């Protein structure tokens, strides 16, 4: 089965995705109570590949190889494990049947396994933190260390979170059964919420390592698409996929060659990912079916409005502002309100935006938020008050922020002191959203 002339590299993230799929299949066959056994079998299969392929080259069908080997390891484990007792023969028969079936990783049944797994990992009975970690670990094929790095969390804390979640699955006897018609809405919303949270963590949080956070975004997008391609998909599901795809399309333009942060206004739009944009608009169209207007719909509409503009200046800011008004009604969060002030500045000018910002500055959660202070600094700069702008950027620098953000704020601060000397007029206004 080993190919002699393999030259092409393995498909990107093949191991990660395959690990998720095989785990999903084995958990279904072994039962959620045997989560650990399934995970160990998959890990062992990957280790065997790591030991064999460096010498012999990769097999013709690497995914199929891993699938079969993991099944064989699970079969051996079930035969050895006394807890299966009388059930052992039936489970082995199921595993044997499953092992012979693998053909295509995109095959319907495998997707179905993954989908069931996502719904179990995102069960409303589990805390969201636990659902995110569990989804990344089991469906996403992330390791505990990678999850910890993505969330800048302690490895042991993540490991404990996973152990607790698995115990809860066992104790509350959560199954891989798809939700019943009566509670499908609630279950689906919980899944979408976890995926959205996962995406935002990757997209907006500046802590953690850039590369692994980008992986988080793409994993969330992959899971979203998986749900969107299932019969359970709703317009809301498509809206979520649309917003993730349209925002992820900007990822290549968010940092320049020197690794510096580039805000939306200054991004080289030629570097936006056309395939993701097309994907985003496709799902955006599908999100329009029905009457539901969810937060995802409004967020997707904002992203779509940005994407339609050929450059930042020509964006339809009045539309964006009215979308932020809608969003604020659905989700009255201070962060949404802060982003709304940026749209106000574009439509009604920096003075109006500064007025809108004032109540937010009294918010306990936002007072020491570096982005609020950065927006304030920018607005003051546009109003020709560089000394006060400098104060705001200095205060922003005292807050917790990432290394690229710190350098960005320092450059802003420098431009303030230059302007307070020459007292030049302001440059183009800038959005706070990278």
């Amino acid at each position, binding site marked *: 089965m080993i190919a002699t002339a*393999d*030259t092409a*590299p*393995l498909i990107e*993230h*093949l*191991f*990660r995705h*395959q*690990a998720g799929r095989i785990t999903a299949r084995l958990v279904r066959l072994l039962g959620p109570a045997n989560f650990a056994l399934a995970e160990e079998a998959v*890990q062992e299969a*990957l*280790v*065997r*590949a*790591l*030991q*064999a*392929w*460096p*010498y*012999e*080259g*990769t097999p013709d069908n690497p995914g199929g190889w891993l699938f079969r080997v993991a099944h064989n390891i699970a079969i051996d484990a079930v035969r050895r494990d006394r807890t299966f007792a009388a059930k052992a023969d039936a489970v082995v028969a199921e595993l044997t049947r499953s092992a012979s079936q693998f053909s295509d990783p995109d095959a319907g049944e495998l997707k179905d396994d993954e989908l069931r797994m996502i719904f179990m990992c995102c069960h409303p009975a589990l805390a969201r933190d636990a659902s995110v970690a569990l989804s990344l670990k089991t469906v996403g*094929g*992330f*390791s505990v*260390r*990678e999850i910890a790095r993505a969330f800048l969390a302690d490895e042991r804390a993540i490991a404990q979170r996973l152990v607790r979640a698995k115990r809860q699955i066992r104790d509350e006897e959560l199954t891989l059964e798809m939700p019943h018609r009566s509670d499908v809405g609630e279950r689906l919303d919980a899944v979408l919420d976890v995926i959205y949270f996962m995406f935002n963590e990757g997209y907006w949080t500046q802590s953690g390592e850039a590369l692994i956070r980008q*992986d988080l975004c793409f994993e969330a997008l992959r899971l979203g698409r998986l749900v969107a391609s299932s019969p359970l998909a709703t317009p809301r599901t498509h809206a979520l996929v649309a917003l993730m795809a349209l925002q992820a399309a900007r990822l290549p333009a968010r940092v320049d060659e020197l690794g510096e942060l580039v805000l939306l206004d200054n991004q080289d739009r030629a570097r936006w990912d056309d395939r993701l944009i097309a994907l985003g608009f496709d799902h955006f169209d599908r999100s329009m079916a029905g009457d539901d207007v969810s937060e995802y719909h409004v967020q997707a509409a904002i992203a779509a409005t940005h994407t339609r503009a050929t450059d930042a200046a020509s964006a339809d800011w009045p539309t964006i502002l009215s979308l932020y008004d809608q969003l604020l009604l659905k989700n009255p969060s201070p962060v949404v309100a802060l982003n709304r002030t940026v749209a106000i500045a574009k439509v009604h000018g920096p003075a109006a935006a500064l007025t809108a910002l004032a109540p937010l500055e009294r918010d306990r959660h936002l007072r020491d938020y570096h982005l609020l202070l950065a927006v304030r600094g920018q607005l003051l700069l546009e109003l020709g008050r560089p000394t006060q702008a400098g104060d705001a950027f200095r205060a922003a620098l005292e807050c917790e922020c990432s290394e690229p953000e710190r350098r960005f704020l320092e450059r802003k601060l420098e431009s303030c002191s230059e302007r307070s000397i020459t007292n030049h007029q302001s440059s183009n206004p800038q959005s706070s959203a990278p």
Partner: protein
Amino acid sequence: MPQFLLLLYDTPAAVAQFKKMSPEEMQQAIEKYRAWTKKPFTVDSKRLGEDPGKVMRSHNGKPRATDGPYSETKEVLGGFYLIEAASYDDAVALTTDHPHLEHGGTIEIRKLYGQ
């Protein structure tokens, strides 16, 4: 050009490390090994089977086979690469960036006789 055999041993530490790697890390490690097998001086590479193998000895004048020296606590010969190099120094220099070393494995270099 003289040929050298690189004998790759999996140490218990290396195996333990493999078991802790994430799927993504394992895939990246495999790609590194694969890149090495495609280097111009690499002639061949083979993995040994996972079984302990057999050892044959003459016992009281009769050949006898016993199970191999496999042990969890020892370095296990995992496989070999055959490479071309001008000298031992050259072979050592070429092997310095071998991914096996990154994972705590050891490599024994032996020159083929008469070359």
